[in-house]
């Protein structure tokens, strides 16, 4: 009889642990969704602002083309290629910053760009951390053995080069 009770307790404890683990993972997935949504919205805003900058009167046609196409690429990129496309846009903006006097003519637009860039750094750091935590968790044996991740795809890290921001 006592073996039965012990067995029952172990089973119950195990079921509880499975629920607990699934719940943890679910929360992590939700965290990634939130951090990505935030990162994505900031990137969208930056692309929009880049488009605005491209159409300023003082911007020459070549730079205009460079910026617009970089902004478009960033907007249309698949999630796995997103960081590469965004780096392209960062690069184009940086070039404009360094090699023309347009930033001085439009201090408002460029200070907005600066604040977006600051927010972007934080957003990337927060997203990166939530992705790493989720991926690490999903490698756990219990998660894989019982397929606790369900059909949720493995979150993708957002690699970026710090110096181009």
């Amino acid at each position, binding site marked *: 009889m006592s073996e039965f009770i012990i067995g029952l307790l172990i089973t119950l404890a195990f079921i509880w642990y499975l*629920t*607990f683990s*699934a*719940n*943890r993972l*679910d*929360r*992590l*997935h*939700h*965290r*990634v*969704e*939130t*951090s*990505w*949504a*935030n990162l*994505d919205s900031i990137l969208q805003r930056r692309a929009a602002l880049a488009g605005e900058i491209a159409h300023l009167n003082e911007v020459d046609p070549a730079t205009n083309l460079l910026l617009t196409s970089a902004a478009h690429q960033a907007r249309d990129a698949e*999630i796995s290629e997103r960081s590469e496309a965004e780096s392209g846009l960062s690069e184009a903006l940086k070039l404009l910053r360094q090699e023309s006097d347009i930033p001085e003519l439009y201090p408002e637009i460029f200070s907005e760009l600066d604040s977006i860039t*600051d*927010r972007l750094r*934080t*957003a990337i*750091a*927060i997203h*990166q*951390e*939530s992705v*790493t*935590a989720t991926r690490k*968790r999903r490698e756990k044996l219990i998660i894989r053995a019982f397929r606790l991740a*369900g*059909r*949720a*795809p493995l*979150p*993708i890290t957002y690699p970026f080069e710090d110096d181009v921001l």
Partner: protein
Amino acid sequence: MKIGMVSPYAWDVPGGVQAHVKDLANHFLAEGHDVSVLAPALDEEAVAEEFVVSAGRPVAIPYNGAVARVLFGPVAATRVRQWIARNEFDVMHLHEPAIPSLSLLACSIAEGPMVGTFHVAAPRQKVAFAIAPLLEPVIEKLRARIAVSEVARETLTIHLDTDAVVIPNGIDTSFFASANVNPEWKREFTIGFLGRFSEPRKGLNVLMEAVPNLTRAIPNLRVLIAGPGEGLEVMQALNPSLRNRIVFLGRLSEEDKASFLKSVDLYVAPNTGGESFGIILAEAMAAGAAIVASDLPAFESVLGYGKYGLTFTNGDANHLAKQIIKIAKDQKAIADLREQAELGAMKFDWKTVGPEIMNVYQHAQGESEKVTVGSEPRTWLRFLSREDRGELS
């Protein structure tokens, strides 16, 4: 935005974390946000601030070279539940959630947008983090983590295997910059020390050890020691002929502290360890003090690696004396240092720090999500419905 903050330590006991929570709450209130703070309190009647809700009486435990008053248990848990359920916060900000106290409790109870700030830096103190594996599932719930310094961030990475955004503690720089100069504290060449000097980690003994060397080079030296404690022991350890150089000022009010930092010729922070940020250095900078501090990583970082103040080898009284003597004879160097310090302090002003923290809150916030009390039935519902969840980026 409706913000809930949780302090792990007793509200009516002075301390760095409590002061930070209080200033941050006041900053956001002044900006028109709705803030409620949940904190333990020794005496509920003594809590003057309207926005503070008491969670009960804390217990005292020795921690990190000081006594920490923390709170946990079923009664506190009930109060946390009620507080969360009643308020429907947009974001909950937990201070020091890795310490077994109220913040950790709140973190384990709540679901939703949560941000944690880690103040402590204890790269070697393993004991405090011995419960790390148990903490992981709880800390994991935080949408974003803030570390108050690089050192605090490192501690986090080592013990809890997670990264954080570094945002320094904030201060009201104008309060210190506009302080009055007290002529009594400027008479002759004054060196200031501030802190609970009976605690060895504050490093007063390092400064005392340097005094004989200093008086030889600076005949009109006076050492002003401010802070609570009994000075008798310090005096007895000192050569009788040097005792008239030392002045004990006792505990100073905030106004006097600002004036003290502004008046002294040199401010010395010889702390030997246990500092994760060094808010006093930021305050001294804001007051435009010429600073000589030990080379703790946290101090180095506040002082901009020598830009806003000098450092000396931690614990080395000779090096300290050398650094002080070097600058004491050079009025221009002191003036430059003062000017640089005051400029450098701007990055610690709430006007800079507040928006950075608000930015993190916004990152933590999902779409129209509120902080709720996590409940078991809901856990099961979520588990059963997870197969239908949408796609994940």
